[in-house]
């Protein structure tokens, strides 16, 4: 943290866990506001949404960790609200299981190719 200049704007990480079928909509929406860097992970989990039952030859299985997609993107603090709103608008279906967003402060961002730091690295 001490390496950061006090004049420089902070970066924040947005982690969004969304329904897998919403990924394309979310990507398009973010592209629309000029965000084109992100990491996409295929994950499994559940919140309030309960899983489902599967049946194989009469044997019933309760499956409660469900496939989800997790997006990770780091943006300057000033853009966090705008990005979060865009993401929510694109990912919301109104049903249980739409997912969650977590926002954390990022201590530093570095571009591996050329040592650029801070916003220049995003």
């Amino acid at each position, binding site marked *: 943290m001490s390496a950061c200049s006090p004049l420089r704007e902070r970066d924040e990480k947005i982690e969004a866990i969304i329904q897998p079928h919403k990924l394309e909509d979310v990507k398009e929406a973010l592209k629309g506001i000029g965000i084109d860097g992100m990491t996409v992970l295929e994950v499994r989990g559940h919140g309030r949404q309960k899983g489902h039952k*599967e*049946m*194989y*030859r*009469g*044997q019933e*299985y309760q*499956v409660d960790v469900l496939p989800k997609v997790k997006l990770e993107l780091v943006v300057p603090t000033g853009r966090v609200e705008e990005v979060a709103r865009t993401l929510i608008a694109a990912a919301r279906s109104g049903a249980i299981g739409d997912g969650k967003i977590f926002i954390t402060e990022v201590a530093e961002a570095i571009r591996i190719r050329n040592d650029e730091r801070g916003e220049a690295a995003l």
Partner: protein
Amino acid sequence: MTSDDTGRWLLNAVQSARVRRIGSRVLLTLLSAGVAVAQSTPDISKKLDDLDTAVKNAQMSGDNAWMLTSSALVLMMTGPGLALFYGGLVRRKNVLGTMMHSFILMATVSILWAVVGYSLAFAEGSPFLGGLRYLFLNGVGADPNGDYGATIPHQTYMIYQLMFAIITPALISGAFAERMKFSAMLLFMTLWSLVVYFPMAHMVWGKGGFLNGTLGGRFPAWDFAGGTVVHITSGVSALVCALYMGKREGYPNESMRPHSVVLSVIGACLLWVGWFGFNAGSAVSAGPLASSAFIATHFATAAAVLGWMFAEWMIAGKPSVLGAVSGAVAGLVAITPASGFVKPMPAMLIGVLASVVCYLMVSKAKKVFGYDDALDAFGVHGIGGTLGAILTGVFATKEVNDLRMGKAMGLVDGDAGQVVNQLIAVAIAWGLAIVGSLIILKICDVVLGVRVNKQQETDGLDLSMHGEEGYNFEA
């Protein structure tokens, strides 16, 4: 053309040749031909002999083509058919180990068969085990063996029967999936072939076998393609294995969902196709009986698919894909002994009965008894095979296969005694499978230990037995 006509024609030819002043060598040739025709009786008899040979060769070509094709089809049932069917049903960490159970038998049983297996199953011997005449395939050559297939090379019959000897032990592997030590599996399968399969094949199909229906059996039982020999022996041995080895770690509380029903669907489809070689090939010819068996097989399977699907739909609420393909296998199993003896409508009845009974067996009865027959080898092959073997005695008819020269073949023909013969064959197959498998398991357990340790089971057989993984997504 009569010989007179021929003579006249030759005379004319000779005269016209003279007129045309053809060289003396040609004349000489034609004259000697005329002399040969004059000795017409031996010539015609030779021609008839030639014709006879040509007809026999033509039939042999036809039958042999179908039997070689059938042999390949039956091998395809084990790999990739059964390997995929079973492979999809296990957890991801055991997919290779499970497929290996099938694949390695394609090699192991083949060697065993060439050395001693074919002889113990098909050479003349006692009513319960064949002799040693065909040891190392001695005397198994191009000439047909009239007892087993008069119109195909003995070699073809031998290789066709080998494919059955391969798939039968492979079927058992469904019961001990995900927990048997590979070395013990190899020893078990080798001993099992020697102690259970070869004797049973001899009893039912070998000349002079105790249950042989056509070649002098004490209790002639009908088993067209292996209801007793293949499905009861493997299915009942599977139950013995499941009981002896105990449940998988975590069964039935942990999730043991199939890791890929997709693989199982592909496997089941390959089994259905391969089964035409299994059943229609058991006609040991490419004639009408092969067609009849092909058709009975197909319609029984179609009915069985629908039987399982609707039963599951009604009882469990959804028509599962795994249920539909399991129904196909149950139907194929049940029609196997009957395929060369029954008409299409009884075939459908056999198929639908077998699939509903097998569905109830694997989805309800298994839970009640609590044994862990992991992939339902007993529920499908043991139960389906038993039902099929008994129903063969009910529906066998001379209209399809007149082996008794016009006399009744089964209950519908008016011979209730045949059902008794079938029951005797079923009882012998069950008894041999139970006693044989128990003894062999005990031997394997003492020599090698049959079960992997807890850590190996948790890691999965792929890693612990073979040092590999089925799916390396990061590779």
